[in-house]
């Protein structure tokens, strides 16, 4: 079994069954299960924690509150201005959804749904829709497309810049999808590589394999902690960039 099979086994999605919805073939897979788990946590645990008056849950309530208020005051208000309140639900959900998908990937027997290009692509697609929706809603469709090219550009550059900016709209979302996807699988690949070291060196001689094992496990532990950090960081980055793009679409100056 080569590294390719190991990687595919551990990182790619495992599809158990298919369902047909018109032309779409909908898979029931491990990543879908993870999404369902994250959604269940968000739908059941969050409202309970937020509405509960219990002092045991107060720290968790405070944690959620701090994050939501941070998203509102530090991420949304500087970018969206007074419209921040209207979009807070979207951005808070986006942050916690990505965060829980990332964290579930670090749980034993879990899988990283955000390490699947379809999932990050889906999230990026919603961001793409949000950017255009917010821009059109704020400026009207005509002005929105007229303002796609930045101000101060000489007139003769418009025919060149307009298509570039149109592509740029898609690129932004595409970059978001690739960034999250790559960040989430990179750690896993590194961990798998470190663990493979044990068996690569073990194939030379069992003694060398045993000697390498502690080093490998230490490095894996370090990478896992790094992944824990990256889980939070990438959820924040995705949310933050979405806010910047949305703000730019709403106020094109």
């Amino acid at each position, binding site marked *: 079994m080569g590294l390719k099979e190991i*990687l595919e086994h551990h990182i*790619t999605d495992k599809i158990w069954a298919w369902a047909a919805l018109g032309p*779409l073939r*909908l898979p029931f897979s491990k990543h879908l299960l993870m999404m369902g788990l994250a959604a269940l946590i968000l739908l059941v645990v969050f409202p309970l924690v937020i509405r509960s008056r219990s002092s045991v849950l107060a720290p968790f309530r405070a944690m959620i509150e701090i994050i*939501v208020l941070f998203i509102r005051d530090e991420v949304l208000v500087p970018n969206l201005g007074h419209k921040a309140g209207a979009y807070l639900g979207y951005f808070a959900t986006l942050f916690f*959804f990505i965060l829980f998908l990332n964290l579930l990937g670090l749980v034993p027997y879990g899988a990283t749904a955000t390490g*699947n*290009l379809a999932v990050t*692509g889906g999230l990026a*697609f919603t961001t793409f829709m949000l950017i255009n929706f917010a821009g059109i809603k704020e400026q009207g469709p005509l002005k929105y497309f007229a303002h796609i090219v930045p101000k101060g550009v000489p007139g003769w550059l418009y025919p060149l810049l307009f298509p570039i900016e149109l592509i740029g709209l898609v690129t932004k979302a595409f970059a978001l999808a690739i960034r999250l996807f790559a960040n989430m699988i990179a750690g896993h690949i590194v961990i798998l590589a470190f663990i493979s070291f044990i068996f690569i060196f073990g194939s030379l001689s069992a003694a060398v394999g045993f000697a390498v094992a502690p080093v490998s496990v230490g490095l894996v532990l370090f990478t896992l902690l790094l992944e824990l950090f990256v889980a939070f960081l990438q959820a924040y980055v995705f949310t933050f960039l979405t806010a910047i793009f949305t703000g730019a679409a709403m106020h094109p100056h």
Partner: protein
Amino acid sequence: MEALIRPEFGLMFWTIACFALLVVVLSKTAWKPLLHAVEERERAIKHDRQTAESARAGAEKLKAELEAKMTELKAEIHRRMDEARQAAEKEKDLLISEARKSAAVIVEAATREITAQKAEASAELKNKVAELSILAAERILLKQIDHRANTDLAAKYLAELEKERPDLKLGAN
């Protein structure tokens, strides 16, 4: 490896549907109550602060009023004391002058009385002295004047009288 980067569109659909559902439901069940609680707390804090500030302003106003009243009262006390002092001074002067006046009256009356009594006493004394001297003289005269001396004296006086008033001379003509 291409399985890693081949997006499964069915899963993409699931993702979008799941996320959209989460946004709709969580906006109502989680973020709204959370923000509601936060806003309520912020409002409560703001309200508390406003109450405290207005109470403080009220206290400061009251303090200023009391201080103004205090200075007013002090000035009033000062003024009253000055007035009282002046009145007392006046009263004192009045009393003293009245006392002087009455003293002068008394002294005058006393002087007059003394003078009168002195005069009376001296008059009485004079009378008594005169009476006493007369009585004494009487006694002396009664003792000294006997018949012979009296006759001599009478002869002498008569001779004198005859010399002075020859018209009254008895028997010589």
